[in-house]
């Protein structure tokens, strides 16, 4: 075969001539489009995003209303319930949005197609992060508006504090989501339950509904290793004492960056192990 024929074959191929090893926003966009097509093709998927956060908000909202009638310390403690459940949903739904998008690839047995495409892990992870925010927004925006109407709780009124809370919670949710995606790559759908339940260990440990001071000292040490603890403490300080604790937010951010870096290393290690063990060929098992 002549060099001219090889060159002609290459020139006829349909790909772009830019550096194929560079990060591509086009590929990130392709993956976001893929998940968006899926989401809009199924109303039960959209309904599911809104249903449970709404149920939770109403349950805790009515409990807060009931406890508020007694006055005193219980009422003060209870006045953070709606805020707590909504911030918890940012954490939980953020991770779930990330993990479910990843699971969709395993359910549809499409993972091998993606892994042999030019899609790189940072692009894949970026798309999952964007989808986590999209799914979270679909669920949380209506719920936050209902909280204003029914309970007079305006999450948006927290302003800059909400931005700090959101940033820290979403970073933690992504760190956990990246770690779980790695587990799924290595162990397939055998690790699926982790995607649904791993975050729940954060529910008691990060003191969503009560202050860290109620924990035994040894458990409080563990609690302060987790960024959401700083957010929930910060939320209580804001709602009960009207003080924004920027120091807590800065500490949470520093731990989050560490967690994200560790999660990415874990993901890449799981990916290498999956390639060694041939798990990418048997993704659904």
């Amino acid at each position, binding site marked *: 075969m002549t060099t001219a024929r090889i060159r002609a074959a290459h020139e006829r*191929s349909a790909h772009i001539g830019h550096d*194929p090893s560079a990060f591509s926003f086009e590929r990130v966009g*392709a993956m976001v*489009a893929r998940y968006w*097509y899926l989401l809009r093709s199924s109303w039960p998927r959209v309904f599911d995003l809104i249903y449970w956060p709404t149920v939770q908000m109403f349950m805790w909202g009515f409990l807060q209303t009931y406890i508020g009638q007694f006055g005193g310390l219980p009422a003060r403690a209870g006045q953070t319930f709606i805020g707590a459940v909504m911030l918890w949903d940012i954490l939980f739904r953020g991770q779930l949005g990330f993990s479910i998008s990843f699971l969709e690839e395993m359910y549809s047995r*499409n993972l091998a197609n993606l892994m*042999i495409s030019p899609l790189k892990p940072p692009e894949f992870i970026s798309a999952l992060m964007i989808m986590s925010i999209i799914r979270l927004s679909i669920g949380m925006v209506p719920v936050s508006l209902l909280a204003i109407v029914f309970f007079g709780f305006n999450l948006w009124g927290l302003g800059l504090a909400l931005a700090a809370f959101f940033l820290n919670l979403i970073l933690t949710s992504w760190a956990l989501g990246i770690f779980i995606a790695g587990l799924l790559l290595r162990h397939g759908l055998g690790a699926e339950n982790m995607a649904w339940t791993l975050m729940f260990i954060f529910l008691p440990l990060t003191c969503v509904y009560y202050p860290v001071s109620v924990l035994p000292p040894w458990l409080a040490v563990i609690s302060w290793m987790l960024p959401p603890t700083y957010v929930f403490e910060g939320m209580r300080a804001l709602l009960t004492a009207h003080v924004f604790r920027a120091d807590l937010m800065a500490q949470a951010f520093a731990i989050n960056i560490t967690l994200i870096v560790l999660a990415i290393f874990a993901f890449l290690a799981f990916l290498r192990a999956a390639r*060694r*063990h041939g798990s990418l060929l048997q993704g659904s098992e």
Partner: protein
Amino acid sequence: MFSPEPAISVSNLVKQYPGGTAVAGITFAIERGSIIGLLGGNGAGKTTTIAMIMGLVAPTSGAVRILGHDMPRERYQILHRMNFESPYVEMPHRLTVRQNLNVFARLYGVVDRDARIAALAEELDLTELLDRPTGKLSAGQKTRVSLAKALINAPEVLLLDEPTASLDPDTADWVRTHLEHYTAERHATMLLASHNMNEVERLCDRVIMLKRGVIVDDDTPARLLARYGRSNLEEVFLDVARGRGEAAREAVR
């Protein structure tokens, strides 16, 4: 950039799993523009070999080079120039054919996606199906969609794992004809793992026969038939699979 290196070069490739050895040190090279068949029974190492060539499975030892690049070290220099099709790897069922092809066109950086999808749909008789959910299609239609995905980037190297498995003879023949045309027109290289001897005999310039992870023979279909004294590749395959290969060759000598 256009080096005379083979399209695919595999040397001393080994893959060991805790349960045993899937590929036990194979070496071969595939010239650009050729169609090569990987033949072997279940567990012979065909799929593992293709998966290592694609970078989906890491070899225990040995090397793979594709279009002059080391796989997996330089995977992102070459993945956009190759593609893969297998009935065992599916595409999202709820997405329409057009949406699926659009996503993969973007992943592969295809220029003028709409025109490319329209052209492929025309070639593969998918135009009427473009706006139907992929999961609602028949097995034959899904295979054609998978083939469109595999050709979306006009790959120079195409890897196929049993591309016509579970298809009726008419559809299978149609797919083979299309693959023949594609490789001839584009001067693409194709590596095909198959259990279908007629398919291999018809399509392949050369056949690599695997058994328990090693290459037991490697030649053109015509030379293999002559060497084993057989009239078709199925008989050659049975000789090799049942351990009669050496005796058959000896009888011809």
